[in-house]
């Protein structure tokens, strides 16, 4: 009886008693969720355009951030190293398309997924040889102190991350809706064969989408790195993006954002209010169980395309 009360009722009583604290936790969670969204965004872009479940997205985030930090530490100015990292990510996109995707065209999804695991191993090894396995602090001049609004503490860095994510999503939406390449990308996402038959070059599109995913990875990596330092053990953080994906749907950009916010908020609430009752570390799996239960009711995620199957 006591344990039931502690799990089912107790946390809500705590919440009701301290509304300011609840809002603080909620905002902290939502802002953390923005970070997840940034990682999930890269997954969605690639899955939409090429049907590849890109496990290496998490590694790409760290690889981009690590390269950026490495160049800064080598003494390059911020802008120049930014350009250099973007160049590196574009080269990576070319390499992936040429050496992995093109030979594996028409293979089943699971084979493509495994190949991205291979890419992930490759990047981890390469990144550590180039830049070492230590934690690199990343300071890009964003103030990191807490900000107090109406008695509620907000981490400034998280706020900037939210702004960056918002800008990025807006820019991507504009790019997808208003440019020629964006339209081609949407066409490919809708139907590969139809896109090819109206003359859209699939190979170039793949390079393009991997390059864009690389840039999103860079943005995510810089924001992650600024708050936690850059190190490959953070790779697991990228796994947090997966429940975001299934919540939001693999093919939906708004889904990635909303999913990220939901995961971030519920995870923090779970850790802060239920953690003391059932043990700490709830964060590790809370989002997954949430996503699992959610999927039982809506198998395609919040905004995913309805899966229609015909025999």
């Amino acid at each position, binding site marked *: 009886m006591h344990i039931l009360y502690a799990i089912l009722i107790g946390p809500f009583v705590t919440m009701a008693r301290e509304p300011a604290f609840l809002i603080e936790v909620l905002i902290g969670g939502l802002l953390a969720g923005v970070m997840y969204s940034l990682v999930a965004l890269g997954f969605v872009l690639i899955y939409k355009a090429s049907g590849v*479940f890109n496990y290496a997205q998490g590694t790409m985030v760290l690889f981009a951030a690590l390269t950026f930090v490495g160049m800064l530490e080598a003494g390059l100015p911020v802008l120049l190293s930014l350009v250099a990292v973007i160049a590196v990510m574009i080269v990576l996109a070319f390499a992936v398309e040429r*050496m*992995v995707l093109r*030979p*594996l065209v028409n*293979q*089943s*999804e*699971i*084979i493509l*997924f*495994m*190949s991205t*695991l*291979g*890419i*992930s*191993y*490759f*990047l*981890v*090894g*390469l990144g*550590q*040889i180039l830049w070492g*396995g230590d934690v690199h602090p990343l300071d890009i001049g964003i103030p990191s102190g807490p900000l107090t609004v109406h008695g509620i503490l907000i981490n400034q860095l998280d706020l900037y991350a939210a702004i960056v994510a918002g800008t990025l999503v807006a820019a991507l939406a504009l790019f997808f809706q208003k440019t020629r390449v964006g339209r081609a990308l949407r066409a490919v996402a809708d139907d590969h064969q139809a896109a090819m038959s109206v003359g859209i070059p699939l190979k170039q599109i793949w390079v393009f989408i991997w390059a864009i995913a690389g840039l999103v990875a860079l943005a995510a990596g810089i924001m992650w790195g600024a708050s936690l330092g850059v190190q490959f053990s953070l790779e*697991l953080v990228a*796994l947090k993006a*997966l*429940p975001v*994906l*299934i919540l939001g749907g*693999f093919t939906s950009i708004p889904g990635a954002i909303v999913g990220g916010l939901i995961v971030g908020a519920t995870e923090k609430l779970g850790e802060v209010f239920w953690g003391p009752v059932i*043990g*700490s*570390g*709830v964060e*590790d*799996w809370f989002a*997954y*169980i949430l*996503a*699992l239960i959610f*999927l*039982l009711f809506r*198998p*395609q*995620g919040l905004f995913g395309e309805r*899966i229609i*199957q*015909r*025999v």
Partner: protein
Amino acid sequence: MLYREVGQFRTSYAADQAIFPIRQDRFGMLALLLVAYIAVPLMANEYWLSTIFVPFFVFSLAALGLNILTGYAGQLSLGTGGFMAVGAFTAYKLATAFPGLNIVLVFVAAGIVTALVGLLFGIPSLRIKGFYLAVATLAAQFFLIWLFVKVAWFQNYSPSGVITAPPRAVFGHFFVTGPEALPAYKYWFTLTFAAVLALAAKNMVRGATGRKWMAIRDMDIAAEIIGIRPLSTKLLAFAVSSFYIGIAGALWAFIYTASVEALAFDIDRSFQILFMIIIGGLGSILGSFLGAAFIILLPIFLNNLPDQLGLHVGVALVTNLQDIIYGALIVSFLIAEPNGLAALWRIGKEKLRLWPFPH
């Protein structure tokens, strides 16, 4: 010339439906078992037995389990590590709570408990498919590992969170776990489990059960229309697969490492076993064994390579280079033979059949 079924007429249904209908396969299997049971323990030294052959059979069993689920029934799972942990911790709890219980029974019971857990996490598979399901099985992975780390009851309140296998013997005094266990006994013990379960799997996949699984894998709606129940078929695949994986986990904890913590079964373990079945061949019993051998031997080979070449490089560099080579090898392997090592074997058999003619 050697491998040709010409002249082998099957005159009864029993002969036609045998597990190995071709005589060469039957004798080959027998010879293989004889080599494994007698020649290997005589020839191999302790190091080979306990650090290569025992983990090889443990991994093969786990790969076999995952192959039943992913390769035959088509349900992609990333929760293998979590299910192995269930097997390991159940076996530990049973062995310490009932000291008189035969160790074989303990392992089978651990497999059954894992099967029940697998059944539970298999329920969403009716509604969700493909990568959605794969990510959903990650829930099992993370939740189970967290459970075994956080709840001290599972580790019998050991302060370090490490469980150590109590000494147990089979047939009275042949110790297979604990300090007195001989590598040869451990080897025979794991080999027997692997051989019996592999034979059972081979039998299962050629019969009605396996055909139902494959029908669901190839197209679930079509399978449903011809009268296969998706729910029971998928759940059975989850249960059988988890049974195998649970026994593999128990063998890992008791026979291979003797003491283990829950984090040994983390997500990397799941990926490792997934690699095994991809490289070995999806939907192939033989492939599970070949893939396990490949993934076990590759790091050992990569570790020794610099020494063999006479190069002296730092430990950190070697680990990182290993990652790079591992990743590159996986990608190039997938490009060269997406159907795995088992497909190579199949092609080889076809060639043997026609030899010395090319067509």
